[in-house]
């Protein structure tokens, strides 16, 4: 008996973009990763009998190299992508970051622990308060005072942090919508962001560079009418999100632009170190707030939205839902927030009240030493991580026991995400680069530091 020959299996060769059906079936990447033609197969356009005709038919094409950025309308935050394109198809991409390098880590070594707060504002400049909180938590961890932070301060940190997360996502989604042509959505979202920033401005004194959080607490207590205004704000932002969804979610053009574009598998995402909404879009439910709760996040009831396909639409939808969850957290926080001080009661860490500074010699010396020498942080090293707007925002700090850090290193989420951008855009069209890049949400200040 002869060995049965294997049934003939024509290898499927797929060109063009994945269809939603392929993406759902999970075959999109496989089909497009390496199309292997069966032996003896020739592309239809070369099956010409006459040699001369064939030469005429082949158009002489060669790949073109174009610079997308550093000065390009969609490259917000100054990044350069050197694209090798064949017609409209991207064949190779070289992502170059670093145009916004500001020596954050080196400058931090010359500043006192408290003076670094303004620098952290400029990391992810659409959610500065999240950076403030992340940095403060790192220093407090090294000081060993994490448990002694007053509860009210912790709640305030959660509130301003979640408000910043909403502004971050609003900016990201609005800008991405504008880049695929839906400019109206952009303005609606920026309008909502403006409401949030107005309230933040009232609280912190600044729209963007807040520097509101301090080591051991926050700079000032909530304004008297903060709670009712926040509730009203949440209602209006919810309404705006509903309007935005009505324009985009059922819009055929928008869905076609986003569905099944730039898919990433959960395995790849984890291997490339993705975190945040982008990781969750692939289906991995990792959220620092849930998995390693900090502050008072374990007291709130909120869900971690995850996607299923890891495409641009999932990244959009995950961010959309995260804003709703943030608003849920805000509502619970504003209900639960206890009265009390907002600064740790420790003269080695928090500044004395101004009345004492101006009227007593002890107060003045205390103030002087804290301002000039800085808070003395015991020697050691610590890595502290929080959920930033784009993912895990980590601070690795080393202290030699003085008032200034020996080393202050940031783990910026978007820098890690940018590593794999080329994998997402190669094979797609030039037009897909823009929404993909927008959904990665690279923030120059954070990525290049």
């Amino acid at each position: 008996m002869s060995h049965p020959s294997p049934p003939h299996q024509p290898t499927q060769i797929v060109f063009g973009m994945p269809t939603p059906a392929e993406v759902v079936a999970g075959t999109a990447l496989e089909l497009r990763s390496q199309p292997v033609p069966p032996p003896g197969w020739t592309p239809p356009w070369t099956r010409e009998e006459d040699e001369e005709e064939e030469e005429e038919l082949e158009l002489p094409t060669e790949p073109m190299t174009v610079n997308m950025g550093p000065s390009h309308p969609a490259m917000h935050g100054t990044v350069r992508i050197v694209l090798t394109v064949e017609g409209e198809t991207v064949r190779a991409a070289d992502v170059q970051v670093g145009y916004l390098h500001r020596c954050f880590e080196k400058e931090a070594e010359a500043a006192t622990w408290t003076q670094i707060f303004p620098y952290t504002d400029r990391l992810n400049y659409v959610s500065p308060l999240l950076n403030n909180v992340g940095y403060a938590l790192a220093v407090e961890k090294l000081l060993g005072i994490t448990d002694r932070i007053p509860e009210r301060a912790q709640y305030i940190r959660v509130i301003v942090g979640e408000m910043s997360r909403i502004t971050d996502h609003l900016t990201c989604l609005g800008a991405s919508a504008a880049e695929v042509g839906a400019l109206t959505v952009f303005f609606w979202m920026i309008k909502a962001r403006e409401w949030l920033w107005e309230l933040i401005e009232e609280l912190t004194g600044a729209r963007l560079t807040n520097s509101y959080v301090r080591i051991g607490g926050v700079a000032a207590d909530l304004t008297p009418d903060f709670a009712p205004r926040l509730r009203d704000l949440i209602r209006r932002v919810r309404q705006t999100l509903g309007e935005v969804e009505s324009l985009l979610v059922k819009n055929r053009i928008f869905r076609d632009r986003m569905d099944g574009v730039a898919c990433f598998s959960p395995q790849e995402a984890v291997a490339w170190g993705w975190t945040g909404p982008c990781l969750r879009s692939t289906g991995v439910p990792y959220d620092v707030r849930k998995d390693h709760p900090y502050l008072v996040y374990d007291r709130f009831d909120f869900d971690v939205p995850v996607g299923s396909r890891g495409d641009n639409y999932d990244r959009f939808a995950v961010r959309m839902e995260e804003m709703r969850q943030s608003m849920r957290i805000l509502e619970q926080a504003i209900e639960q927030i206890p009265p009390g001080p907002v600064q740790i009661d420790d003269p080695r860490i928090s500044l004395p009240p101004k009345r004492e500074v101006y009227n007593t010699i002890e107060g003045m010396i205390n103030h002087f030493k804290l301002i000039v020498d800085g808070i003395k942080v015991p020697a050691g090293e610590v890595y502290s991580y929080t959920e930033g707007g784009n993912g895990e925002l980590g601070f690795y700090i080393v202290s030699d026991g003085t008032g200034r850090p020996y080393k202050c290193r940031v783990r910026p989420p978007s820098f890690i995400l940018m590593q794999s951008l080329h994998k997402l855009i190669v094979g797609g069209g030039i037009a897909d680069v823009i929404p993909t890049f927008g959904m990665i949400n690279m923030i120059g200040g954070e990525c290049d530091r």
Partner: protein
Amino acid sequence: MLEFLIEHTWLQALIKMALLILAFVMPLASLSTWAERRQSAMMQDRLGPNRAELRLGSIELRLWGILHFVADALKMVFKEDVVPARANRFLFGLAPILAIAPVIITFAIIPFGSDLCVGHAFEVLRDPASMCTSTIPLQVARIDQGFLFYFALASLAVYGTTLAGWASYNKWSLLGGLRASSQMMSYEVTMGLSLMGAFLIYGTLEPHAMVLAQGPTPSSWGIVTQPLAFFIFLTAAIAETKRAPFDLPEGEPEIIGYFVEYSGMRFGIFFLAEFVETIFLAAVVTTVFLGGWQVPWLYPDGFHLMGWTLELPHLAVVLIQLVVWSLKIIVLCWLQLLIRWTLPRFRPDQLMRLGWKQLLPASLINIVVTAGVVLARSGGR
């Protein structure tokens, strides 16, 4: 004077062209640059441009910011005209002209009112056929080829954008030019085919005859007899104007566009051409689908509706028709602005799929069905 005009039709045509372009199209195009910014601002909860004002002594003329287009035009004219170092200067200069000239010329075939009956301006036209011996058509060129002339000239407009992209010596603008040429050529096919059904029904290619064939009863207008063609043509024609959601050749955040190297008034001409095309599209849709200058139930001698009659002198009838024609065009321009600020942009492959796989078959089906109905109604003769 009038007799001289009636005899010398070339002079008549020149005057009508000048009046149509300078008194209607250009002001409306300029106004729509303002309207676009203002309307988008309203849709986006912004104020939009509202500051430009004219100060004559103590009188401040603000007019909701309408004067912004004057300020814009002045800015464009006085800006430095930059030509890239290695650009082809001749083609670079030619491209904006090629972009705007065909559209303006094609306005010649658009009828904007019924024929003026010389000598009977203030009488009621009870019997137009015998009373009107000498007429002035309110249409620049009444040529039998009509819409063929339009298709021929419209296909020239693609050279403007393609040459602009190619002559600028910039890879992004080259990509934009290529996108423009593929897009405009693909959608021209659909555009032509979608009008075929209307040609079959009206039995003519001549716009004025088409308007007459539709008559003053709205139920016999093109939008009722050819609803599918109306939507196909509107879509394809918006693609021809290269405005969102079909603004791929510009594709501002993606490839910046075919006119990325243009500045000053040269850019201004591209900008204006876009709006002139918008108005032209509105004019064609009005002519073919919305009864042109026809006003519902307004006949040459006045209104007739359900036994109720209101007699009007000839001049009043023509004036009402002119106003209604303008209103139809303005509403269609407004509709285009609304679409432009609502929908996101297509991707090139999706655009081609929509054009060749959906709109083109739909327009072919429309032709076949219309032809069948026309044949059946004519009794197979």
